[in-house]
């Protein structure tokens, strides 16, 4: 007990309830919680040896803080340096975090160690239980009020009871690793490296439909909120939109120049967000299939995940960065659209300006120090050179 609490530093020992948050899972074995407005990293959850390492907080090379936001508004500057709390529990993934989902009560993560962990989100992310049955990495997961559905590299899908954690069913049928899974009502949609999208009935456990048309392995599939549409994509670089009821392919979008890694249907606006290994993030219109927006090379490497809401697209990449594309940042009063009151824009801007000035000051100080060091080195070199030269001149 004492071992894992020693890394747990929270002000006032109070319960931490994060609102307006971003949760990310990474190959670095940690789960991090970020504030969507202040851009600060609030909490790091991970194995003890990762969380306790000093390099989690500061860069060992120059002593600077590891967590910060880089904003280009209008000229690039760095702000929101933050020191997150860190926490480690005996039950943790000591491997890459490949997938996660949370709601108001629980957070579920899936890992390449083949298990899932269910955390209580309102109790300091304390693990509740582990879901272990898959024999290979858990590649994706989804849950609703009743079930947790997971899919794995072992070509199967598992259905778990959310309340008890019992495994209810294992669905066999895919002949390749199941890369993505999602559920709506009593339907599960899954896609696999075997080129197919399959629809399953969660109650009977039967495969009710197969959507064929893709010509290479699939990486992602998504339901729309009303479960009418399914979007899928993968290595054949094509996004297909399907009618979930009839199984017809409604639209084929020649979308990217490399594997399409992630899809997100914004069911409110009808926008489809795609992220690809070609480093592009694109926005399509679900209705017409036309390209609305293109953000090429905003990530400097593969895009691994991209989601959106009414205001932002937030994506993650192999480049270790989280990219927030904020369409409302410069709008006066945009915070009025939030469902919960937050810091007004004027105050936010003044706070950011302050942080920016401090950042600049910090940079100037560091540059000054570097200059001093450089001068000292130069002096020493010059001194020795002079010393070396002196005798020859004397001679």
């Amino acid at each position, binding site marked *: 007990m004492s071992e894992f609490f020693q890394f747990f530093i929270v002000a006032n020992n109070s319960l931490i309830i994060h609102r307006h948050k*971003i949760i990310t899972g990474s190959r670095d074995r940690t789960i991090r919680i970020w504030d969507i407005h202040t851009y600060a990293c609030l909490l790091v959850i991970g194995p003890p040896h990762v969380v306790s390492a000093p390099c989690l907080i500061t860069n060992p090379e120059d002593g600077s803080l590891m967590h910060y936001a880089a904003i280009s508004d209008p000229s690039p500057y760095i702000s929101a340096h933050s020191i997150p709390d860190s926490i480690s529990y005996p039950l943790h993934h000591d491997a890459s975090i490949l997938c996660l989902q949370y709601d108001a009560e629980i957070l579920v993560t899936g890992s390449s160690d083949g298990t899932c962990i269910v955390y209580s989100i309102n109790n300091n992310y304390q693990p509740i239980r582990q879901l272990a049955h898959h024999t290979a990495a858990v590649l994706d997961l989804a849950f609703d009020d009743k079930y947790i559905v997971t899919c794995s590299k072992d070509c199967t899908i598992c259905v778990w009871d959310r309340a008890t954690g019992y495994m209810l069913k294992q669905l066999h049928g895919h002949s390749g690793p199941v890369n993505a899974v999602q559920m709506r009502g009593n339907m599960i949609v899954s896609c696999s490296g075997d080129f197919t999208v399959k629809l399953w009935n969660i109650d009977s456990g039967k495969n009710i439909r197969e959507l064929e048309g893709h010509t290479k392995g699939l990486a992602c599939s998504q339901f729309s909120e009303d479960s009418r549409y399914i979007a899928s994509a993968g290595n054949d670089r094509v996004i297909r939109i399907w009618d979930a009821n009839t199984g017809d392919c409604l639209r084929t979008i020649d979308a990217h120049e490399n594997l399409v890694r992630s899809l997100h249907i914004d069911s409110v606006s009808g926008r489809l967000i795609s992220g690809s290994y070609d480093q592009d993030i694109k926005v399509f219109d679900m209705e017409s299939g036309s390209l609305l927006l293109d953000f090429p090379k905003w990530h400097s490497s593969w895009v691994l995940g991209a989601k959106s809401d009414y205001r932002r697209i937030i994506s993650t990449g192999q480049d270790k960065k989280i990219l927030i594309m904020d369409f409302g940042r410069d709008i006066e009063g945009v915070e009025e659209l939030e469902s919960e009151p937050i810091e007004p824009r004027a105050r936010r801007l003044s706070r950011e300006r302050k942080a920016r000035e401090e950042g600049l000051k910090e940079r100037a100080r560091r540059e000054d120090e570097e200059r001093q060091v450089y001068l000292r080195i130069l002096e020493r070199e010059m001194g020795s050179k002079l010393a070396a030269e002196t005798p020859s001149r004397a001679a």
Partner: protein
Amino acid sequence: MGSSSAGDEEYTKEYRGKTVDPKHGKQDSGIRGLLRRASVSLKNHAQPRRASHSHSTSFYDTSNTRPSTSSSAWHKLKNAASFRNSKNELLSYGYRDQGTLESFDDIDVPIPGNGNAPPIIPRRVGGEAARATAAAQNELLERTRQLHLDDIYWESCIDCESAVELSLSHVNLGQEDEEIMVHHDNSIIRVDFIANLPTELALHILSTLDHCALAQASEVSRTWYKVANTSSIWKEAFYREKSSTYAMGRPVTPGSGLGLPPMVPDKQWKEVYRARQQLDRNWTEGDAKAIYLNGHTDSIYCIQFDE
């Protein structure tokens, strides 16, 4: 985005409802032309100096096919506002041609109007019928006077206001009785109902408009500006226009973090609307600011966020 812009298109379409052969318009002269010019739609009324090629049909149905006055919006309004006690049916078409209304001393029971004939109302009967009669007569006189004034006004404008002439020539009138209807409506439409109605009703009427129409309505007059800028109107418009969804299977629930704040009364709803409109525009134009969060030390595979 798609759905919203489609809505705008529809909106413009409504305004371009009526396009008519311009040759037909030029032949207009005499009383017909006068009537045509007099039938100013609300939109043109709001922006009289713009050479508009459109004719509003969406605000108030001034179309030619109206069956009778009693079904007009104004008429319903009057009933709703209870200006008079339910005897508005007296104002049928033929009634106008009768000149002044006569009362009869030698009957005791009112005789209802038949065809073009006016109802006969006994002098000694007090109360409602008499009041209605008087009111009707007053209204008739008022209208005649108003029309007369209009005629003078329009005649004086004919030469100088070519823009107005142009826009009005687009009204297509085929038959004589339709002209009468337009004539008839014109006088009604000249009543500033927003200023005259109780505030609640004025608010209720304007709250059915979308933001473009509201912006136009607020240019009509100071009173209209005041009413059209009431926060509750913008609140209505905001929730009506921004809660539609593409594939949610239901409208957006306010306060669920999807861009619709909870319905609290003390917000500046016009500002909320404006912010949302600007946000939607930024989405169309792809105007996004990039913020990179650093901290993870390896590939980030998964993400979820809430506002």
